[in-house]
């Protein structure tokens, strides 16, 4: 007789107050493949943990987003937000799909140049641009989005010295009815700061006002806030037109669209509740079209959407290290994925799906990472099927911020692979090794030797 599949024995007390999960047996479907490539094969070949990026999903996402806006508005340009995921393979996929680059530091600027993005198609945001950064941006004809007055004066001075005109926009912050209001970045609309800065630019000989920029928040759940923001930028653009007969070329609505992830504390799953890209597109484009721009003078609409385009294109594969029971009786599962590589587990309830078949029996489980640190919690309470040691899991929607904010802590960072549209697997970032890390370090002579 062939042996049956093993599952650990489970006994659950039926309590009247306890939600009964037997009705939810379809909640979990194993995720054995990603883009038709077996999870098991991926782990066998590239080890666990492993980030897996789907090129097909990225291209699908950006095409869908472009369509959502282009169907509603004549001139649309996306710019890939480097900080969300600046792996070159990811950036170049977006560039192939027509996206410009949106960067927030000299390092990211160099990365975009290195990716062969023409300087005039790089948008330079952020509060920290060094003089060297500004010189470089002016040199490359980049679009500099000014964050504060000190920066405005620096640009004035450096452009004058360079005898070259700087292409600029200002970042505007405003009350869009949402909380928190991101008033730490850019110039405020309501108190007149923004209008004041615009007048300074218009009077400058060395700055050309190309556009207006805002970025109202992150993981926004309200399309209406974007409509309010688009309306205020349109008002500013029209005031400039009326006063200086100068047409701004573009309106940059920034990013911040929510992905389908589940924010901690939200009752309904993000995939159901979070607005779709079409809803955001409708809010923004209808406001611009209904504003006082002449129909043939509508500005270019730029979008710096990051998270919503990349989050669901990446999965993190891992392996069960052990099952334990806490002193209070709670079941825990330790996996080889820690918060050092899954930073977003601090604000999302990431969906964890087994990569192999299982039964309908489930248990409330705390999922810990492998770090010897109390904060290393991936899910503090999740109803999971019964996993055995060595079983694989897939954590979904990890594409945004994890591969830029991850850190080498206790463990080395793992490989990242990309599955191309022909189902071919490419390593796009190697796993780290000790020697690479040691290259950064220097040991003073007197500390070289010791006896134990």
């Amino acid at each position: 007789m062939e042996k049956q599949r093993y599952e650990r024995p489970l006994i659950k007390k039926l309590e009247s107050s306890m939600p009964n999960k037997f009705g939810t047996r379809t909640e979990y479907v194993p995720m054995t493949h990603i883009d038709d490539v077996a999870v098991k094969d991926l782990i066998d070949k590239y080890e666990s943990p492993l980030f897996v990026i789907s090129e097909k999903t990225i291209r699908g996402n950006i095409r869908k987003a472009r369509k959502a806006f282009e169907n509603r508005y004549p001139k649309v340009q996306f710019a890939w937000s480097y900080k969300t995921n600046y792996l070159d393979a990811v950036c170049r996929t977006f560039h192939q799909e027509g996206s410009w680059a949106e960067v927030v530091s000299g390092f990211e600027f160099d990365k975009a140049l290195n990716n062969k993005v023409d300087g005039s198609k790089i948008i330079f945001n952020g509060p920290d641009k060094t003089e060297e950064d500004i010189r470089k941006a002016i040199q490359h004809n980049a679009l500099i989005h000014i964050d504060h007055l000190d920066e405005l004066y620096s640009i004035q001075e450096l452009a004058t010295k360079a005898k070259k005109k700087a292409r600029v926009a200002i970042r505007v912050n405003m009350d869009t009815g949402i909380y928190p209001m991101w008033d730490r970045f850019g110039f405020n609309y309501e108190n007149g700061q923004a209008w004041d800065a615009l007048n300074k630019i218009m009077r400058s000989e060395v700055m050309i006002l190309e556009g207006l920029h805002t970025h109202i928040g992150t993981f926004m759940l309200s399309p209406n806030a974007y409509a309010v923001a688009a309306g205020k930028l349109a008002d500013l653009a029209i005031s400039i037109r009326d006063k200086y007969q100068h047409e701004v070329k573009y309106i940059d609505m920034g990013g911040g669209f929510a992905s389908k992830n589940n924010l901690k504390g939200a009752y309904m799953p993000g995939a159901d509740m979070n607005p779709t890209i079409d809803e955001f597109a409708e809010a923004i484009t209808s406001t611009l079209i209904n504003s006082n721009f002449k129909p043939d003078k509508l500005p270019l609409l730029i979008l710096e959407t990051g998270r919503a385009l990349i989050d669901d294109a990446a999965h993190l594969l891992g392996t069960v290290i052990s099952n334990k029971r806490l002193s209070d009786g709670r079941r825990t599962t330790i996996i080889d994925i820690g918060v050092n590589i899954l930073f977003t587990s601090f604000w999302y309830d990431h969906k964890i799906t087994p990569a192999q078949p299982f039964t309908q029996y489930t248990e409330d489980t705390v999922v810990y990472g492998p770090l010897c640190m109390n904060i290393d919690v991936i899910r503090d309470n999740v109803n999971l099927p019964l996993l055995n040691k060595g079983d694989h899991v897939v954590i979904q929607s990890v594409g945004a911020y994890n591969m830029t904010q991850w850190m080498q802590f206790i463990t080395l960072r793992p490989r990242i692979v990309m599955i191309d549209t022909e189902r071919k697997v490419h390593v796009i970032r190697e796993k780290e090794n000790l020697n690479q890390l040691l290259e950064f370090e220097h040991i003073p002579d007197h500390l070289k030797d010791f006896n134990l």
Partner: protein
Amino acid sequence: MHIKSDVAISDSGFVFVPATGESFTVNPIGAAIIHMLKENKSVEEVSKQIFENYKTDMATVEKDMNDFVAMLKQYSLIDTND
């Protein structure tokens, strides 16, 4: 180690304790273990049987059996008189 004699287990894996009115559900392996324990098999015998019938290793079985028996004790399904 005995399962209390009044503990009833049905085919669907529903466990009922008349003395306390409490009820539990178990998965098929859990039910198999309770059935064997009710037949007065020792924990070692039950473990061996599980190892023979399922695709797993002895270390896993022992670890999971320990945990399961501890849960049975916690839920007072085991006679403490032995």
